[in-house]
């Protein structure tokens, strides 16, 4: 029978799912729908594509959750890894260049005033420029840490790198942002801080 599933851990929900409690996966979905969508949205050019990929991620997760082994990492890192694979698959199949304007617009809160929108647009543009000055893995680790709020342990699981290696890559990312892109970085950080 349905329980107060919001209090259960991911592993307990997976257990319930495997025992036939079909509402358990719905609870897992509610926990990860937004984080996974955001993770995908940060990395693709448009909302429709992000929704398609998010759908793919959860369909695959549903299909394979019974194969998930809790001894090999958290459910969160497991499903992020599915999302990462889905993104790689997507980029491999779709090599067309995304429309940057659409992408930037899609990332801005539609509830902002016109003036706020201009500022946010400039900021988004600077962020985009700065991020794409990094290597792919550096950008991936930086976004996972600061935007997707993943721990280094989770990042290591998702990317297949060592935890220490992820930290080192992140440190280099920050160094690159600070030293090689002074203008973008200044805009990125709202020009209110002194970089020495």
């Amino acid at each position, binding site marked *: 029978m349905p329980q107060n599933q919001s209090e259960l851990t991911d592993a307990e929900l997976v257990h319930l799912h495997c025992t036939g*409690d079909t509402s358990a996966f719905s609870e897992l979905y509610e926990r990860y729908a937004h984080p996974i969508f955001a993770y995908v949205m940060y990395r693709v050019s448009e909302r429709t594509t992000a929704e398609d990929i998010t759908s793919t991620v959860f369909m695959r997760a549903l299909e394979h959750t019974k194969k998930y082994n809790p001894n090999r990492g958290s459910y969160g890192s497991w499903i992020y890894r599915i999302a990462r694979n889905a993104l790689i698959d997507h980029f491999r199949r779709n090599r067309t260049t995304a429309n940057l304007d659409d992408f930037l617009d899609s990332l801005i809160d539609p509830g902002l005033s016109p003036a706020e929108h201009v500022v946010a647009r400039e900021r988004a543009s600077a962020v985009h420029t700065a991020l794409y000055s990094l290597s792919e893995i550096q950008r991936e680790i930086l976004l996972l840490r600061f935007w997707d709020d993943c721990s280094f342990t989770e990042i290591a699981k998702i990317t297949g790198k060592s935890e220490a290696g992820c930290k080192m890559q992140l440190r280099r990312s920050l160094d690159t942002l600070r030293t090689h892109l002074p203008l973008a970085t200044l805009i990125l950080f709202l020009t209110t801080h002194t970089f020495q």
Partner: protein
Amino acid sequence: MNTTEIINSLISADPSLASQRDLLEKLIPELIASRPVAEITDSFRITLKQRLVEEQQSIVPASTGSKLRSTFIRYSAYGSACLALILITAGGAYFSRHNTTEPPTTPLSIHQVGDKAFGALSFSGSGSGKSTASSSGSMAINPNAADSTSVITPYPIWSSNPYTIAQPVIDSLPKSVEVFKQLPTSEGVAALFSTLLPTGNAMRNVTNYSLRTGDYLIQTDLTTGTISIESINQSIATPLIHSGATSSSDPAMPSFVTPSPTPISPISDEDALNIAAAFTQKIGIATGYFGTPEVIKPPTTAVEPLYYPMYSTTTVVYPLTISGLPVVDQSGTPVGITIQINPQDRTVSYANISTTFQFERSVYPVNAETFKKSVQSNNSNTYSLYDGAPTDTTTPTPITLKDPTLVLMLFTQNSSTTNQTESYLVPSYSFANPSQNSYPAKIVVPLPDLSQ
């Protein structure tokens, strides 16, 4: 997000960063604050959730399919109270004439809400519009039905192999088919329940209610017209048996699965049928509406080595037929009285009665191209997932489907426009999967393209 923790971890990885702590304390919060807006919309979130539910129905073991439907509906955010109000006002007292304690001698048939007349399914070879059906009986086509049913889309088929279909099968498709939308009323549901629980069962005049009787908890679901009966003496309705590993030291064994201490001998078909018959008699379920019971066992040969835990259940189904056509769920499993037997203690662990009452009909054209597309799963569905990178994709062997059977697929969804649970009977082709090592055992393809 704890900035200090992040900085400390960075410094621990590279002690030279300690001299730049001040910089990091400014830079990192700003970087976090620059995270763009990427809110998921409610419409997408709910739609995907519904798709996942439908997908679960097609991949979970047969005996749990109907349970899934009612469980999820309870779990989902759609208010049954609102639905009940609508049902009460919808009218229709057809089932009042079936409100009898005597099991019926004739099978259920479809009838239309408007004229309460019975009708039979018919297939038109010439009609193609949504309002130009040629149908048998005296039923008229509801002019509003097209809008209310156009949200259905054929569900995706997920498998490790793509399916192909012979051209003669496609050529044989009718040009249009009638789709039936369920319009339940509270009176109809109450009458249905009392009909199916006739022999002094206290539930017979109660809807949307739970009742404990003996070792079982009986629940009715007003939204789907289903009755579920669950054993309260089993913490897990179906025992988990690992498909390959024999001890918890096996690395393939998930920590939460306990190996069965003793081998469980399979239950014979005869024993299963006897247990099911005794159960229906004990609870007081009228089986006269339904067909000859059949035994369904899990396909043990199709289980992958790591596909654990497997359900070792035997299910007896009293199938529901309408106008001579079997009613199945999206996995091709017969719908009707589904009785799940625990082979370990040889008792009924769960039962579900899923049937139909009032349906409104409309006609949709058949789109052969969509039909083909829904059978041929695309490459994105076919690569191994857990350990594999996308480059692990292997070329799957197509499975050729032959000799379909015409069925009615019972399809339940929440309407995106009204937030009501809607049930449909969709004419479909059911193909037996010729591959013993591929799941699912049956491929059910809706005939009409309802997304147009």
